[in-house]
């Protein structure tokens, strides 16, 4: 259901202010969402003054700098730092993206960093994505093919292969799904852009023999048709993919088959 206001335990309070100690003239303020599960207090926004003279270009570098030099207690996911693993997905400057590919220069004014929207927070910038993973599992994201001969290649024409372009690149970072208002309000039932893009990736694969079943499974008022083409997903995707188009393609296939 649509619930605009945050629950009582999620209301954000003002947090600590970390003043710059380096004496640098090039200072930027970074506001970061903090929540510590051990205290039982409400989430807060901590503000850090960061010396930008000695800071590499991306938001993730900025976070690393804060963690290394100012406040080691801050928690966030990260791994590859090259936009491939999708771990450091978060909300920066009011838009979802990967901290490792987002240059902080693109952000004007203070830098606001929140966890991905409308998730249960586990700590600081870490949101709980287990619902999304369960939904991902529900579309059975693997090849279904009755050909048993494992010694033979399962060939695909160049044309059929090209249908997977713009789909297989998805890294499941959840930027799109957590940017979608429909997913905010109906996240338990609506599959969301990330999972639907994956569903389409298997529907359209020429090697897969389960297309009809897959389409039937996804053809649901809530699972699929909660997409109202708001297009926040496509706007958010850090890999430049187009989940809105993938969802429309599923709808079109259902309407024409």
């Amino acid at each position, binding site marked *: 259901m649509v619930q605009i206001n945050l*629950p009582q335990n999620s209301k954000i309070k003002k947090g600590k202010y970390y003043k710059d100690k380096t004496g640098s003239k090039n200072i930027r303020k970074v506001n970061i969402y903090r929540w510590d599960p051990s205290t039982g207090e409400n989430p807060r926004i901590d503000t850090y003054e960061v010396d930008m003279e000695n800071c590499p270009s991306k938001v993730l570098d900025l976070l690393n700098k804060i963690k290394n030099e100012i406040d080691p207690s801050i928690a966030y996911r990260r791994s590859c730092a090259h936009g491939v693993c999708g771990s450091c997905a978060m909300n920066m400057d009011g838009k979802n993206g990967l901290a490792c590919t987002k240059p902080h220069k693109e952000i004007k004014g203070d830098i606001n960093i929140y966890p991905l929207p409308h998730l*249960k927070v586990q700590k600081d910038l870490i949101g709980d994505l287990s619902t999304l993973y369960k939904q991902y599992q529900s579309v059975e994201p693997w090849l279904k093919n009755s050909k048993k001969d494992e010694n033979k290649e399962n060939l695909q024409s160049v044309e059929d292969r090209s249908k997977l372009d713009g789909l297989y690149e998805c890294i499941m970072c959840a930027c799109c799904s957590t940017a979608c208002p429909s997913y905010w309000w109906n996240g338990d039932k609506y599959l969301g852009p990330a999972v639907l893009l994956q569903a389409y990736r298997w529907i359209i694969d020429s090697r897969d023999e389960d297309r009809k079943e897959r389409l039937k499974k996804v053809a649901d008022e809530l699972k699929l048709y909660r997409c109202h*083409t708001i297009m926040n997903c496509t706007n958010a995707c850090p890999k430049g993919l187009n989940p*809105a*188009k993938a969802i429309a393609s599923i*709808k079109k296939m259902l309407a024409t088959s």
Partner: protein
Amino acid sequence: MEDKNPLSPHIQIYNWHISSLISISHRITGIINIIIITLICFWASFLLLGSTNYDIIKTFFETFFGKFLIAGTVWSFSFQILCEIRHFFWDLGIGFELKTANLTGLIVIFGSIVLTILFLGKGLI
């Protein structure tokens, strides 16, 4: 997940894009249009009851608020129609590229204003 975990902020912090702004306006104008159509039906049946009713409505529409209501109605319908055309192309699978979607979005916004002015013409002033 236990209930003690807070919900991360969503609509409070998320930036508006052209596409999301039009999407929500599309819904709102849709609801407004239903109300307006109902009112127009009432208005029409009201007129059947005689010329005095016509005079009351006429004076009302000549006030500033009345004119505003008419202009708003025309805009609301224009916006809705253009949005629906945009959605029709989307249903055909056309116009999903971010640039195209933003462009058609702007066309909807400015187009609805242009249509309102064209439709009302001199009547506005």
